[in-house]
């Protein structure tokens, strides 16, 4: 597969977005959204990570196999956290 060359301009734009998002996540943390704070913070982090992966790490331009590897990694981490929490969150003494 021929190698894809990403123009530097894209890198600059992405970096800008990432810095803005960092600022946003800090701003949102100052507002009390109850349980939603963590959701928002992690969503923003996830977006940032996705941008880094897609552009800086060229996942967007990579073969399907690489994309699959990335998805598999996230999927397995998800399994671990989700299934473990299925225990903790259904224990009577932790629900509040």
């Amino acid at each position, binding site marked *: 597969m021929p190698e894809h060359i990403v123009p530097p301009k894209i890198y600059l734009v992405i970096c800008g977005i990432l810095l803005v998002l960092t600022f946003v996540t800090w701003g949102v943390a100052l507002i009390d959204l109850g349980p939603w704070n963590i959701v928002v913070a992690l969503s923003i982090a996830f977006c940032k990570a996705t941008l880094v992966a897609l552009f800086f790490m060229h996942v967007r331009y990579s073969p399907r196999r690489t994309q699959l590897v990335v998805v598999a990694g996230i999927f397995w981490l998800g399994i671990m956290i989700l299934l473990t929490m299925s225990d903790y969150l259904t224990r*009577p*003494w932790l*629900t*509040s």
Partner: protein
Amino acid sequence: MADRVDALFFFLLGVSLFISLLILVLIIAFCIKYRRRAPNEIGAPIGGSIKLETFWMVVPLLLSMVMFGWGASLYMSMQHPPPQAMEIYVVGKQWMWKLQHPEGQMEINELHVPVGRDVKLTMTSEDVIHDFFVPAFRIKADVLPARYTTIWFRPTKAGRYHLFCSQYCGTNHAVMGGWVTVMEPAEFEAWLAGGPVEGSLAEAGERLFQQLACNNCHASSGKGRGPSLVGLHGSTVRLQGGQTVIADDDYLRESILNPRAKIVAGYGPDMPVFQGLVSEEQVLQLIAYIKSLAPPQAAPGQPGTAAESKRPAGEAKKLP
């Protein structure tokens, strides 16, 4: 419970025997019938069969769902003690079991129970994880530090049964065991009456409650610095911040040892931390006492409360 477990066991045994004999017989038959007769003989060119393969995916799936359903329903009834069960408190430590009857009897590595009564064990550990295992009753549960776990059983035959620790807990794990003695009810009453007792568990808890000056803050009027504890057990408590919890044994334990983990709505974080000041047994006594503080008409269906009120010593108390 034991016969229900055995029934499931024999069901599984039957299925397994059937399957493994089937496989064994077929493999031996094929190996003999189709043994190689000439060195360069070649097997028939069969590549597979979707139908057959589906068949032997679906049948095990169905069979295993039966096993799952059966096992799960059994497990659920093991997890939910019947409401009228007599409650015994168990503390495990390296390497002994301490058991307390509601009437106040303390036993070590021995448990006496009457035939035909449901018995619920509320268990905790002082150090590492242990596991309370009575093979004859087919019950087992890990005993964790800083948490309560429960199991229950109903002995059906008088006799002496092994009690084992079945979670590895260090050097003397293998000898951290003893006996469960199941007695006829009359005998059991006699045994209960016989031992040297300084009052019931709840009474011991009440004494502690005064010694530790809990009563200074927790008046039944609810006018003290702390909330009234009457009728607390099993009720729903509203916490600071709007969340709610059910006041079960674990909550009471935490409220005593580490009160600032969950603050009751309308009160300040004023209660002192009792961690390190009271032993696990004493916590259990305090809990038994708080449980006995049922309001005049105990809420129906609350595990524990109803059984508690049956005991002479467990009559609903008024706070001093």
